[in-house]
């Protein structure tokens, strides 16, 4: 009965589509009906970055009928090392528009639905409701928990992937019987404990590897074939090229998918993750275009690159400290001595100035140097300032010949 119903509902394939998907059609596990299922499927890619790029490209190639793309960002030159859905020509363009060009070029049959927005608690349920499967290719804990909870609340499976430097994780969460992201990680780490990719770097091919694993899981979910990663966590170590799967269990006490859920609507995920709202003036990149002169963050006065340039012109006496990693130094530097933020606490003795001397700390974007400034303050230094925007801002506003990375 159900099969007959499906046959009626599933869309027909045109002769052009039959020729295009020939290698699927002769594969018994896909076949004509499987290809129809792919055509009828609607998949939402949250993020069109490192993971979303290969994921969306392969789903488009495979004949998934409708792809939703959620991204608020624009294409930056530094994205192209791994985000193969964008290209040199589309630098500066909205990522959803840039991605659409590549996807439609690959498969003009594809229906692309663009959401040029950040996924939030206010819009997630509304966006999710029109899709069958969600693929989480985001880059922060707030959105990870948001995607998870919205998947549970709307009953959509989540093809999950995550990366860090040389390491990846993949799973399928929020299926009817399987565990969810909160079963694995009930709470996020406090901010600052785990470095972001922007700070830590990432091997360019790694998101390709993990994104294609996510795409594979999406295709299996649509076709109903094989064993998905629901209930398992795949660990990928690109350096050793080791793949392992670990058992995941549904936590009966899970606040989202357990027997007595307490997460019955979407919450404030910035607060849940201990993150300040991005609207506040802070030392991070979000505040880089604002005038931060005179502001104080966590007890650390922020100074602008103009302030620093002026201090140098005036010949003021202060100690400038670079807290980036040694491998970043040759790319661009301000000539300051280097103590990486991770080892600062144990190398405090190397600071060659008195406790009440003026110290200006800098890094690439101003985030690590803020952490370092707090460490110095806690170690008894009384006059520590953070260079807002870091070396990137210096390159933008003071020295245009300096390389940005």
């Amino acid at each position, binding site marked *: 009965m159900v099969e007959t119903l499906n046959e009626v509902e599933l869309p027909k394939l045109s002769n052009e589509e039959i020729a295009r998907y020939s290698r699927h059609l002769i594969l018994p596990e896909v076949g004509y009906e499987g290809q129809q299922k792919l055509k009828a499927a609607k998949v939402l890619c949250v993020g069109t970055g490192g993971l979303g790029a290969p994921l969306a490209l392969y789903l488009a190639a495979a004949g998934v009928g409708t792809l939703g793309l959620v991204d608020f*960002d624009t294409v930056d030159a530094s994205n192209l090392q791994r985000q193969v859905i964008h290209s040199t020509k589309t630098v500066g363009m909205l990522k959803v528009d840039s991605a659409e060009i590549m996807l439609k070029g690959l498969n003009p049959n594809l229906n692309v639905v663009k959401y040029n927005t950040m996924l939030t608690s206010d819009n997630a349920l509304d966006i999710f409701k029109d899709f069958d499967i969600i693929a989480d290719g985001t880059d922060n804990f707030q959105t990870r928990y948001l995607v998870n909870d919205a998947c549970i609340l709307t009953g959509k499976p989540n093809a999950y*992937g995550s990366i860090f430097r040389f390491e990846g994780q993949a799973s399928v969460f929020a299926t009817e019987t399987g565990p969810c992201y909160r079963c694995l990680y009930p*709470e996020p*780490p406090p901010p600052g404990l785990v470095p972001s990719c922007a700070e*830590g770097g990432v091997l360019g091919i790694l998101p390709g590897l993990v994104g294609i694993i996510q795409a594979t899981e999406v295709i299996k979910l649509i076709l109903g074939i094989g064993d998905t990663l629901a209930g398992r966590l795949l660990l990928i170590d690109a350096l050793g090229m080791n793949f392992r799967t*670990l058992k995941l269990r549904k936590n009966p006490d899970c606040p989202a998918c357990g027997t007595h859920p307490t997460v019955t609507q979407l919450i404030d995920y910035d607060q849940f993750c201990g993150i300040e709202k991005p609207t506040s003036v802070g030392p991070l990149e979000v505040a880089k275009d604002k005038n931060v002169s005179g502001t104080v963050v966590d007890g650390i006065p922020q100074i602008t690159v103009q302030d620093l340039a002026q201090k140098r012109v005036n010949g003021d006496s202060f100690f400038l400290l670079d807290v980036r990693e040694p491998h970043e130094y040759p790319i661009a530097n301000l000539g300051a001595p280097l103590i990486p933020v991770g080892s600062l606490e144990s190398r405090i003795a190397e600071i060659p100035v008195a406790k009440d001397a003026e110290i200006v700390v800098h890094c690439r974007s101003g985030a690590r140097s803020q952490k370092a400034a707090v460490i110095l303050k806690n170690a008894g230094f009384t006059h520590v300032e953070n260079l807002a925007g870091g070396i990137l801002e210096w390159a933008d506003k003071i020295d245009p010949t300096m390389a940005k990375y």
Partner: protein
Amino acid sequence: MNIHIPTPLRTYTGQQATVSVQAKTVDDALETLIGAYPDLKPNLYGADGKLRSFVNVYLNDDDIRYLPNKELTETNDSDELTIIPSIAGGCCR
């Protein structure tokens, strides 16, 4: 037994991916690990002395939270302990 250290925590183990320890239980193995690399402690344990909730520890293929004796599960030399912290990367702006 071998303890597998994930990339984000290798900063605290001198970049070692695997650490070998002699231990009778899971708890014993983690204590020995922290004894050798004290900087790991705040990354694995909260102020309450419990494993942090965003750190999962697997004995072979099983989450120790679901083993009958949890951290006190006995171990032998051929067992493998894997630490899996949450990672969020994906887009990487």
